[in-house]
């Protein structure tokens, strides 16, 4: 009996026999022990539980999203470096084919779903309520639930690489390869459940922010007076609301195929794998716009703040955002022009894809003309923004080239495609979120990140990026196909692959510089003297950093697009401060353990489904049900902060505002 258990653990449960994975297992084990020890030693368990795990405060949830996404960036980045090493020395079997396939699969899933998405949600959480003058999001409880669903979904996905086996059918898991016939292992089940659980969180976040933006704006903030970042979040969240249900349904059908033996996407029994490819891209293409649109919003904020000038072409910008989000639903088939759908279909999707270049191009012009006749300064957020423009313009250009259907027959699945989407995703999304992170960091923590180290990181990232990905365009034209784990030396691909690998390691070094930058800035903590670190334009800069629990002691009244900037201008021109309204008790949501517990239950249930252990599925499902019932019958969910407490807090923060 005991022997059987040991055998099971060593043969099936834990992945054994690979020194790289063993190293990871040992380091994961050690760091878990270290965390538990530290929490116990410093008596921080209660603090962790009451201040963080059960919090419904959007600012703290935002910080947790960002921490999780940086950890995932590390994991996805290590995956990338391992791949690059293998491709630089294809003659050596650094990674076995199976391991290589698992790594490019997890790299893709993690970077899009567990790095870009949470980093984006983190910034939504931190910034949106502050920019619209709200005290929290519309549904704080749901917000906490979204985070924990994402977190435990991501954990379920990540655990597969030490327990049970990683998925290895590509990041979008095309059937029939991802069906039982092609992937009999557990990796694909971890994939389905990890993404399903976190997907529910993403959908809920989308709904939450749409409602927040539509219903919670400060008085006077008409839709056309919202900061551009808020517009970008709105367009992105509307896209989430329409796209994510498709993902959930698609993966659910795949789950039914694998678990109950249905035939939606199987080879036999009337299944049609091509249907899956259509469905997954109906989500997948909007998904890339979901992550890029908020980056556009961030650039709009930053370019205006550091040009000391109003954003140019506000209406055009809004129209461009909304039309990109609309057209994103009509381009999915450009991911498989080579499926042979015929000239009519291909021509249609080629043209819809190109159409997106128009509003995107207009946005670039508007950013440029925001800088035109401005006064430009170049702290790190602005550096990332300026680096973004040429990078994204070139990446967008190769995107248009790919959209030309007959030419795509030659680009498809080659390194040209890889270079393109990394250029828009790194040059657009990652640069954008970094810019946002540097910009709003003082608002989150009350201190700025060290500029010198930040510039080092910036230059290393940029140089590394071009060294890594420019050669990949060339490799694509040389006929190199994506997902090859080895190739023949005679193809002449090796020199450029070596260059590309060097570039990847430069980006790895840049990441280390950022970690150093954060550590350094914490060590030499220097409190920001005011809440307005960058001489900002929007409402978040009108309150102290970090913002108090209730954000605004008095709800601001807005009458222009750059409300805080206009107010500062008015006062500088000798205007009188507005009379302060008397403080009123502030209505706030209470913390709740239910989001955490319900997500743990989902994790247990998902883990049970992966292994098909009914004894684990049932308690997990019961846990979910109990949590839902408990929430339905709990009426004590809110409280008021009394006026004297607000006065004390405000006095301590040193502001009377």
């Amino acid at each position: 009996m005991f022997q059987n258990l040991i055998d099971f653990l060593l043969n099936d449960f834990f992945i054994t026999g690979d020194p790289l994975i063993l190293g990871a297992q040992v380091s994961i084990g050690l760091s878990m022990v270290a965390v538990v020890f530290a929490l116990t030693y410093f008596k921080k368990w209660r603090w962790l539980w009451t201040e963080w795990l059960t919090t419904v405060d959007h600012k703290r949830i935002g910080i947790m999203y960002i921490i999780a996404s940086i950890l995932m960036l590390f994991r996805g980045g290590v995956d990338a470096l391992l791949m690059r090493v293998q491709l630089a020395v294809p003659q050596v079997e650094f990674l076995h084919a199976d391991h290589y396939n698992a790594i490019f699969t997890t790299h893709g899933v993690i970077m899009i779903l567990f790095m870009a998405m949470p980093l984006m949600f983190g910034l939504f959480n931190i910034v949106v309520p502050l920019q619209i003058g709200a005290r929290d999001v519309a549904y704080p409880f749901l917000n906490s639930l979204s985070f924990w669903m994402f977190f435990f979904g991501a954990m379920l996905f990540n655990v597969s690489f030490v327990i049970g086996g990683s998925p290895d059918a590509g990041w979008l898991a095309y059937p029939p390869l991802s069906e039982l016939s092609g992937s009999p292992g557990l990796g694909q089940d971890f994939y389905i459940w990890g993404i399903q659980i976190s997907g529910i969180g993403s959908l809920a976040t989308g709904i939450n922010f749409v409602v927040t933006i539509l219903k919670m704006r400060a008085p006077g903030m008409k839709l056309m007076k919202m900061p551009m970042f808020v517009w970008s979040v709105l367009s992105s969240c509307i896209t989430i609301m329409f796209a994510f249900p498709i993902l959930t349904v698609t993966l659910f059908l795949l789950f039914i195929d694998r678990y109950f033996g249905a035939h939606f996407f199987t080879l036999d029994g009337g299944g049609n794998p091509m249907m899956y490819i259509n469905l997954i891209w109906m989500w997948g293409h909007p998904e890339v716009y979901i992550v890029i649109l908020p980056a556009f919003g961030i650039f709009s904020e930053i370019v205006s703040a550091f040009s000391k000038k109003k954003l140019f072409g506000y209406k055009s910008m809004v129209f461009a955002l909304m039309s990109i989000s609309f057209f994103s639903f009509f381009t999915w088939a450009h991911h498989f022009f080579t499926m042979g759908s015929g000239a009519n279909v291909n021509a249609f999707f080629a043209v819809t894809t190109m159409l997106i270049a128009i509003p995107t191009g207009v946005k670039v012009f508007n950013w440029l003309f925001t800088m035109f006749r401005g006064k430009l300064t170049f702290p790190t957020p602005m550096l990332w923004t300026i680096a973004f423009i040429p990078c994204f313009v070139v990446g967008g250009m190769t995107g248009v080239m790919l959209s030309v259907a007959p030419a795509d027959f030659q680009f498809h699945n080659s390194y040209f495609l890889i270079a393109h989407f990394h250029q828009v995703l790194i040059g657009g999304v990652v640069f954008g979120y970094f810019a946002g992170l540097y910009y709003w960091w003082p608002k989150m923590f009350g201190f700025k990140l060290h500029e010198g180290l930040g510039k080092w990181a910036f230059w290393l990232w940029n140089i590394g990026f071009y060294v890594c990905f420019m050669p990949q365009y060339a490799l694509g034209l040389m006929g190199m196909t994506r997902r090859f784990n080895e190739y023949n030396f005679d193809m002449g691909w090796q020199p450029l692959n070596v260059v590309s690998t060097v570039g990847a390691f430069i980006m790895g070094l840049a990441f280390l510089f950022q970690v150093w930058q954060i550590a350094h800035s914490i060590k030499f903590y220097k409190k920001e003297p005011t809440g307005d670190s960058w001489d900002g334009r929007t409402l978040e800069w009108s309150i102290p950093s970090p913002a108090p629990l209730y954000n605004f002691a008095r709800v601001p009244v807005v009458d222009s697009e750059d409300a805080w900037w206009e107010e500062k201008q008015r006062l500088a021109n000798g205007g009188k401060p507005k009379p302060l309204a008397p403080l009123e008790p502030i209505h706030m949501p209470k913390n709740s353990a239910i989001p955490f517990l319900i997500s743990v239950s989902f994790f247990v249930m998902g883990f049970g489904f992966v292994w098909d252990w009914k004894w684990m599925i049932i308690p997990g499902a019961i846990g979910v049900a109990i949590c839902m019932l408990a929430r339905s019958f709990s009426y004590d969910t809110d409280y008021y902060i009394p006026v004297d407490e607000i006065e004390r807090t405000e006095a301590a923060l040193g502001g009377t505002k």
Partner: protein
Amino acid sequence: MRRYIRVLTPLLIMLMAVLLSGCGEQYLVLDPKGPIGESQKDLIYITTILCLVIVVPVLILTGYIVWRYRDKKGNNAPYQPNWNHSTKLEIIWWSIPIVIIAILAIVTAKYTYELEPSKPIASAKAPITIEVTSLDWKWLFTYPEEGISTVNYLQIPEGTPIQFRLTSDTAMNSFWIPQLGGQIYTMSGMAMTLYLQADEIGNYYGSGANFTGEHFAQMTFNVKTTSEDDYKAWVQEVKTTAPALTQEGFEKLTEPSVETVQSFSSFPEGLFQKVVMQYIGEGGSAHHHGGSTAAEEDTNMDHDMDMSDTDMKDMDGMDMNHDQETSTNQHSH
């Protein structure tokens, strides 16, 4: 700092231009040896130039604006903090991309119809049919007219259109010979058509471009293009010296493995059709299409026929029309 970016950006663009324009033999896509690849290369150049028309000025403008309006002592560039709208300017930069994209869309649509993979190549010579089956992890090529078959190796005569008929035994792959022209997916239960032609004698690299599992990187093959006489001699040689591919032999090939180059003097009758039809009728009998024989299906499988799914009657009708449309307007090269 600004200086670096100003120098760096054009340098990188130039580097890219050099890489892209490098017409070295290694740039397979830009060194085509057949009419389809040639047209696709032209199209790549046309679209690149059209894009550069707008991208280059934007990059220059970016560099200029960033340098001109930097906040530095002695920089007396105008500063207009409240200037945020100009209808005239906005009309200009809405219309420039619209015009470029309109031109691009017209070019693309034209080429999309012209280069539709299933459209025959106009030629005095009758096309040779080669059936392509992607297996885990090797390619099986059957020559129905010659009655021979090969694994991971293609030989074709120069200057003759080749009609590839493609399917997959399991997972979806993609059949790609960069120097002859673009790729197309091989999908189980469907028979795709792709016309290619090689105009020069030589050896061309071919690969499976869509991931199909563990050893998919091993699915590369050589396309040897010879004179017509050499081709005939090779067919003759295979017929006389190579072993036969039996049904058993084929089933062995369908098992996951990596294979070297092989030739066979014959193959089981109707093998390709059987592979295409193999999943139909098992559990999908509800979708069967009354009475049509394998031969009939064959004529209708030119496009994206999904035999296992949907109503065959409708699909037949649609695709027949489509066939007529495309076959009347041949390639003009």
